[in-house]
């Protein structure tokens, strides 16, 4: 605190921002909690947009041979729905949880590189805005030589090659216009964001754990964050390279994926799914972590087989790199490859099964407190199991050649990513709501939200299994009346609107409770992990003094002992402990050093979209603006001083 470095007068222009309120405090913040909250809100905004896109799709499909959307609009909508939900909704909502909770769960003041954390958030924001600016600037149309009866319209001018961007359909010849460039470069920018945070989290988990927080005492959510960070670090470079290939093919005349130039469209499939399958686990593992926190707390029992759950998580992450071609069983791969990837896909079901049985073991014999987070966690198990089992039917390669590219697949991955990931995320949002806002959410509304969502979800995605087996292919703008699929499509569309209703209930609850909810105690759930030992809402400094962890579920063991039968018995000292924690948490004894805010993550990331536009429009001035912003950002970042140097100077 009192180290005195003569501040270089020249660096005064780089003085750190100091806003504590208002918009600048958010733009310049490096506080992991504020960044987490911003991630959450921004991702939820995109979730709503992705949801609206889904509703539009469902209106179109509610009847056979419907004309609500044109083909161009429909294709753009399903492309943007998928891209948005994966890259702009579920991934960043998970990032919101990582950011907010990870330092709290390991007893740290912040992540290892706070400015880098802000950087990854702002890159993500600018990447998302860049991608969505396609609705304003992008163009799309018929393949070269094809004809359209009408203009594609502004909705139809969005990217339309699918979130999977299969080549050569998404190449320049069959998807002319700039929309697919927005898609490719937008994903490229978003990938940088994820890579940056992956390394940040890995370093944070390895280096920033508080005293006594050994690896095998870390909460499972932290473990899953760790696994996801590795998945990101290893899988994103693959898609980055593949997207560079695409951009080069589209912009500079290379032929990586064009047969006529000696390229191979199947290569894109391999590269995309070699990223795309680990990506699935990037989406679902955070929910595994969240649920593994909630089930023990609300069952009042420890997690059944903690080491098995941790190792299963890493097993899934590792094997997840060896199953990619199961997305391509009908594609140009040999029977040997089909057999190999079929078997590896079956193998990955084993650690997944271990997790599910261990979760059941956790609630078995417990004392279940059926509050909203617990309902969502239990709903998660029920829905995820359905998605997992339909997944096993895909590993049976011949059966999958019937199922692939049909609504059966759509049903499967929505049971995994909505019934799984989103239910887990909602469980987490309710569970940690008191910690973030210092208020309790409304339990009645929460329960209504759960039941409407559960019903709406199953009404939407349950019949899709059936529709797929009856031959409804995916990404289909219209289906013929003679296929007799109309009735169930109508039910599915009704279900989608029930989901929308449940989301409105959630939003109402959130906004009402955040302002008018009851004041939350700092340990409302009688929880187990150390983020509950600090006041609600979390103070800026997190922990008044670094906690000393002595066991897994340290907080629980501080409150509870076990009798001879092994039943939990509340310690006499527990109440005194809680009172003491509350007192200490609000009144830190020592002066606390916090990372200083900075303008530069924002400045640096704002340069990336300009580089993207420069590539699309082949514009040197735009490239220069981008480069200048990035250089200014990097230079300012490297040279900005620590604020306390000034403070110590003033103190003397």
């Amino acid at each position, binding site marked *: 605190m009192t180290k005195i470095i003569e501040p270089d007068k020249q660096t005064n222009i780089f003085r750190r921002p100091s806003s504590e309120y208002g918009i600048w405090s958010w733009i310049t913040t490096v506080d992991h909690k504020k960044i987490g909250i911003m991630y959450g809100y921004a991702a939820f905004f995109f979730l709503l947009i992705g949801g609206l896109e889904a509703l539009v799709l469902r209106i179109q499909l509610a009847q056979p041979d419907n004309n609500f959307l*044109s*083909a161009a609009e429909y*294709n753009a909508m399903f492309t943007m729905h998928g891209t948005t939900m994966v890259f702009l909704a579920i991934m960043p909502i998970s990032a919101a949880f990582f950011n907010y909770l990870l330092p709290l769960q390991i007893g740290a003041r912040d992540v290892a590189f706070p400015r880098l954390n802000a950087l990854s958030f702002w890159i993500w924001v600018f990447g998302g805005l860049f991608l969505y600016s396609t609705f304003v600037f992008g163009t799309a149309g018929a*393949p070269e030589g*094809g*004809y359209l*009866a009408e203009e594609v319209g502004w909705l139809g001018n969005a990217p339309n090659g699918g979130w999977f961007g299969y080549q*050569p*359909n998404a190449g320049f010849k069959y998807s002319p216009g700039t929309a697919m460039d927005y898609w490719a470069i937008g994903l490229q920018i978003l990938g940088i964001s994820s890579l940056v945070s992956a390394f940040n989290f890995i370093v944070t988990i390895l280096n920033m754990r508080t005293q006594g927080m050994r690896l095998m005492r870390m909460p499972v959510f932290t473990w899953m964050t760790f696994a996801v960070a590795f998945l990101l670090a290893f899988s994103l470079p693959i898609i980055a390279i593949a997207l560079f290939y695409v951009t080069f093919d589209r912009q500079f005349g290379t032929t990586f994926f064009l047969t*006529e130039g000696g390229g191979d*469209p199947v290569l894109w499939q391999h590269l995309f799914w070699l990223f795309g399958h680990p990506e699935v686990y990037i989406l679902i593992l955070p929910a595994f972590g969240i649920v593994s926190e909630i089930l023990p707390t609300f069952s009042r*029992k*420890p997690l*059944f*087989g*903690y080491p*098995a759950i941790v190792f299963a998580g890493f097993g899934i992450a590792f094997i997840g790199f060896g199953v990619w071609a199961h997305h391509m069983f009908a*594609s*140009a791969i040999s029977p040997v490859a089909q*057999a190999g990837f079929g*078997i590896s896909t079956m193998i990955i079901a*084993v650690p997944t*099964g271990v997790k*599910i*049985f261990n979760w059941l073991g956790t*609630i*078995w*014999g*417990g*004392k*279940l*407190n*059926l509050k909203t987070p617990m309902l969502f966690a*239990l709903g998660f*198990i029920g829905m995820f199991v*359905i998605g997992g089992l339909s997944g*096993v*039917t895909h*590993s*049976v390669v011949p*059966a999958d*050649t*019937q*199922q*692939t*590219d*049909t609504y059966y697949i759509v049903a499967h991955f929505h049971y995994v990513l909505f019934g799984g990931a989103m239910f887990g995320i909602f469980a987490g949002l309710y569970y940690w709501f008191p910690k973030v806002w210092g208020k309790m959410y409304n339990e009645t509304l929460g329960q209504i939200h759960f039941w409407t969502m559960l019903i709406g979800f199953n009404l939407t995605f349950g019949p899709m299994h059936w529709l797929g087996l*009856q*031959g*409804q*292919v995916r*990404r*289909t703008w219209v*289906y013929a009346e003679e296929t*007799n699929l109309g009735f*169930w499509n109508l039910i599915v569309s009704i279900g989608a609107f029930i989901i929308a209703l449940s989301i409105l209930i959630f939003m109402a609850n959130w906004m009402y409770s955040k302002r008018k909810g009851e004041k939350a105690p700092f340990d409302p759930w009688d929880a187990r992990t150390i983020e509950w030992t600090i006041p609600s809402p979390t103070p800026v400094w997190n922990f008044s003094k670094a906690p000393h962890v002595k066991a897994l579920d340290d907080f629980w063991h501080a409150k509870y002992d*076990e009798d001879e*039968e092994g*039943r939990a*018995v509340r310690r006499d000292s527990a109440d005194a402990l809680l009172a003491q924690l509350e007192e200490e948490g609000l009144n830190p004894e020592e002066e606390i050093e916090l990372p200083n805010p900075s303008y530069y993550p924002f400045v640096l990331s704002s340069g990336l979209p300009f580089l993207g536009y420069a590539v699309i429009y082949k514009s040197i001035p735009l490239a220069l603006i981008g480069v200048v912003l990035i250089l200014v950002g990097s230079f300012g970042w490297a040279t900005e001083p620590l604020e306390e140097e000034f403070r110590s100077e003033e103190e003397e």
Partner: protein
Amino acid sequence: MNKKRFFKYKNLPVFSLLFLTACIENAPMDSLSPAGPYARQIDDLFWLTFWIAVGVFFIVQGALIFSVFYFRDMPGKPEPKQIHGNNVLELMWTIIPILILAAIAVPTVRTIFDLAREPEGALKIEVIGHQWWFEYKYPDYGITTANVLVIPADTPVRLEMWSNDVLHNYWVPKLNGKRYLVPGQKTYLNLHADSPDEFWAQCGEYCGLSHSKMRGRVLSLNQEDFENWVNNQKLNANKELPEGTLAAEGQQVYLNAGCTQCHVIDGVWDVQGDRIAPNLTHFANRNVFAGAALKNNKENLTKWLANPAEIKPGTFMPNLELTEKEIEALIAYLGTLK
């Protein structure tokens, strides 16, 4: 729908499910009513997996729902025992799934290789994917046709497939699973229909604007009908039409309005080399057209010829600004192409 098959034992629970779900009858794309040995082999494997999955489903959901009711917090309930795990149990629920999966893996691998093998005495047909229609060539007979694939019943057929533009995916759900059509590579798919019937086909992979209208039909004929069909297909169209008829006028429209840029009619306009649009020599024999998106009748043809892009957005067939009279003549002419 084939009643005998529908009431099979393994369909019983599905039948009750259908009852609950006001079943989809006569779904022409139903992947669960196989009509040939390949599809049946897949179907058997699917049901094996399905029933195992149903078993696991009931065990897990049963345990979940039981726990929610039996272990939920009630007044006076004591604190639970703090159980941290159980190695024997955990080993069991690792090993048992492995055994179950191994039991599924064995028939899976066997079926993969069975389906990939080239059947003996198979008829070879080439399938070429275009945006957005399927072209069929019979190298043994020198036949080129489109949209409707005609095969002999109760005879294996070997499809050799590739794409002319983007990825497509050939799927006749009642006869076999899907297989991609890739530009620059050949892929193979076997079909085998038990008896004479008509089947629906559809492109599975998203292939651009009109992907959903890239459909097809497969017509399986008994041996005699098939031979008649082949012999008929080998014939050229008649160029000399009686003068003054509407059909003869239509032929002039075909020859002069620009149709010949892309469409071949053998005996009338049969330049060498591939054309990018369906061969029309025996157009009237096909019950569907425009990528099998439309039934072959006067009303649909009128709509289509007036503005193809209206029906199939992105299509490579231009609007030739034909007059009503020209369209009428053209339709009359197309009707003669048997």
